[in-house]
């Protein structure tokens, strides 16, 4: 057994109104992949932020190589050989990819930043993680998945002894996950200790060696990674989960959403599909296939060059979110921080964002009414918070996602477009969201679900649309769909389908 490199003992961290970590121990060995498992809000991110110098613990201690260390800043952590990929992106959108990779330590010559060398080093790093991006591209222009790969490359650049990854796979598709795992294995074999956080339980056995389970801010168990899945769930949630994908097909009705020949030059081309009442239509595809773009265009968030969108047979004006919303459309966007939430506002305010206008009487907003609805929705989704007036910024990632979904529940949307709806959501809460989808369709609503989580698409859809390179390349009934069948379609060249 390899030697212990980092140990945390009795870590404690409180925020106003919350004990995020109560008593957490963690033992990390060189050359292992150590999985942190826990529900949304269990304290995983808080724990790793203490190790990376972003937070200071209120109690407990951290030892490296048996000696106590004080990690006061990100710089301290870097010097100790700890590199971290945070759950939330920490890239500077205005800077190029190369600069983000060298952030805080660009190569210098005669005191000046050596841009050439920086870009060359960036190129090498990007190649190592297998991302085909010009290092001079402004980071803001990358899709979310490639941003994640850049984050990973940035951490690799530090040549750390301890590499912490907070939900790195949440925004990646299968093939990128495979490549990430290859990199992680290689690092592990080189003796790096990897801390790996994920809500995808199947990844645990695939990549992990040991698992520390957190519950309500305490470390409740340390078990081998090949522990049975239901046992892990039990440790984490405190109760068993019978069925991961509890889809209950509902009776199909009229088409609620009809999309005809939707085209935006250079982004997507001639996309047509229907979603009927009572139906869950899944949309699969590789990163960059254009699913998000289609969803945004349908919702009126972006303009399109040709095509039509109908809701209940009525045509929607293009580029008009408000009209879409009035027609009963709702969109849960893929990037909750940038597009879904007002981070500085509280939970109630965010949950009431869509309904606020309707809750206006004689010009005045019915705030207590809104709070009432918010309370109900929060309860329904099990949002973990100190109260409705907690700032959304301070919620854990998974709970933030629930708020975005809750906003549309409160609005009573009939056609819900979910773009990566369970990104960062724990197993228990996922099932709750699926139950919700069931309830919606049972009530005659329609759901379009875009997801890069193939098992989720397979498990929860009645029909599956597959996109590749901006085109709809196929449709599979749930009964016939398998991972292989979907992937085969997703990787077809668009030209073959034409």
């Amino acid at each position, binding site marked *: 057994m390899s030697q212990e490199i980092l140990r945390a003992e009795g870590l404690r961290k*409180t925020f*106003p*109104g*919350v*004990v*995020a970590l*109560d008593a957490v121990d963690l033992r990390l060995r060189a050359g292992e992949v150590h999985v942190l498992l826990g529900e949304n*809000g269990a304290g995983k991110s808080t724990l790793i932020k203490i190790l990376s110098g972003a937070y200071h613990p209120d109690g407990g201690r951290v030892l490296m190589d048996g000696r106590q260390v004080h990690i006061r800043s990100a710089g301290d952590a870097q010097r100790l050989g700890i590199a971290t990929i945070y759950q939330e992106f920490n890239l500077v959108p205005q800077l190029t990819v190369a600069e983000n990779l060298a952030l805080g330590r660009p190569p210098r010559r005669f005191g000046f930043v050596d841009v050439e060398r920086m870009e060359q080093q960036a190129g090498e790093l990007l190649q190592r993680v297998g991302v085909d991006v010009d290092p001079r591209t402004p980071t803001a222009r990358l899709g979310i998945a490639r941003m994640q790969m850049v984050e990973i490359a940035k951490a690799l650049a530090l040549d750390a002894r301890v590499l912490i990854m907070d939900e790195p796979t949440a925004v990646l598709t299968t093939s990128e996950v495979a490549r990430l795992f290859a990199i992680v294995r290689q690092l592990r074999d080189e003796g790096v200790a990897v801390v790996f956080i994920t809500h995808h339980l199947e990844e645990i056995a695939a990549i992990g060696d040991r698992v520390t389970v957190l519950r*309500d*801010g305490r470390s409740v168990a340390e078990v081998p990674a090949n522990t049975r899945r239901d046992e892990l769930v039990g440790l984490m949630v405190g109760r068993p989960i019978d069925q991961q994908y509890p889809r209950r097909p509902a009776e199909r009705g009229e088409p609620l959403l009809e999309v005809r020949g939707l085209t935006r030059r250079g982004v997507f081309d001639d996309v047509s599909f229907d979603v009927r009442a009572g139906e869950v239509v899944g949309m699969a595809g590789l990163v960059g296939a254009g699913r998000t773009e289609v969803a945004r265009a349908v*919702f009126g*968030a972006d303009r399109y060059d040709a095509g039509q969108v109908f809701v209940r047979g009525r045509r929607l004006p293009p580029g008009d*979110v*408000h009209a879409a*919303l*009035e027609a009963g459309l709702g*969109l849960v*966007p893929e990037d909750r921080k*940038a*597009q*879904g*939430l*007002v*981070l*500085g*506002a509280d939970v109630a*305010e965010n949950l009431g*964002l*869509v309904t*606020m*206008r309707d809750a*206006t009487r004689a*010009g*005045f*907003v019915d*705030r207590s009414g809104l709070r009432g609805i918010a309370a109900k929705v929060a309860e329904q989704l*099990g949002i*973990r918070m*100190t109260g409705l007036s907690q700032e959304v910024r301070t919620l854990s990632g998974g709970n933030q996602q629930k708020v975005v979904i809750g*906003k549309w529940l409160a609005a009573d949307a009939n056609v819900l477009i979910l773009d990566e709806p369970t990104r960062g959501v724990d197993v228990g809460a996922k099932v709750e969201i699926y139950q919700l989808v069931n309830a919606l369709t049972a009530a005659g609503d329609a759901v379009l679900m875009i997801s890069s989580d193939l098992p989720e698409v397979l498990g929860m859809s009645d029909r599956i649309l597959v996109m590749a390179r901006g085109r709809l390349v196929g449709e599979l009934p749930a009964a016939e769909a398998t991972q292989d069948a979907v992937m085969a379609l997703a990787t077809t060249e668009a030209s073959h389908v034409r």
Partner: protein
Amino acid sequence: MSADVLPRRSPAAAWLAENGAVVALVVLVVALSLLSGDFLSLTNLLNVGVQAAVTAILAFGSTFVIVTGGIDLSVGSVAALSAISLAWTATSAGMPWPLATLVSLAVGVACGLVSAALIAYGKLPPFIATLAMLGIARGLALVVSEGSPIAMPDAVSELGGTIGAYLPIPLIVMVVMGVIAAVILNRTYPGRAMYAIGGNQEAARLSGIKVDRQLLITYALSGGFAAVAGIVLASRLASAQPQAAAGYELDAIAAVVIGGASLSGGKGRALGTLVGALILAVLRNGLNLLSVSAFWQQVVIGVVIALAVLVDTLRRRGTN
């Protein structure tokens, strides 16, 4: 499902945490009472209120804008243009004063709408759009007045006076405008939309808020409040001056920021803004009473503004 919950702070503590500038104001008032025997008289305190009025009213208008993450540099110029419009239409155009007052308000609102259109449809940064309006409104005020002050109609000038022997009307106007601002911000759809836009414009848009329209409302309100401030100012002087309120935009913004708003948007309250404006007025009044030399006054005002906000940020850090 719920995390351990620590004891919540008392309502008073929570209120203070949100309105930290009050502490600075109280400290300032106590200090000045000790330093100057003239400070804590009723008449002087009423004076302070009157002296705060114009800045406060401008600042209420700026609060809307700052909550959306914008900035309005034109408020001083718009105040002057509005007052000149009133005096000119009442005098040279012979309009009855109530009508002239409406024209004046309309002018203020129109200036706000032009800025907003440049921002919402022209995608200009608010700084540039309102800087342009700063020049345009000031220039028009000079053109209309031909550079000379115009007497205000007597009926309107009453606004600069008192009710009974003591109660100054500017003070009442300030309080009324403050209440209106607070109600708009807290209780109306446009007000709540301002917070959402300032907090995350894209999220607001994707939640069905018509951002462009709300920005029009926001800057129109700022212009309207500037017009009221201009009228109050001109009433106090019984004369509308083309150069009035020059540079007041910085004071107005300072009042809003001292009051706890953030220039990056999503935060700000009418009460905080009032406190911010009072801090500035108390400071100027106090330094006059203490006979601090004119040159040193600027230094002292600078130091005290920094200290006032420092008290707040340090206190906040202490409680976290």
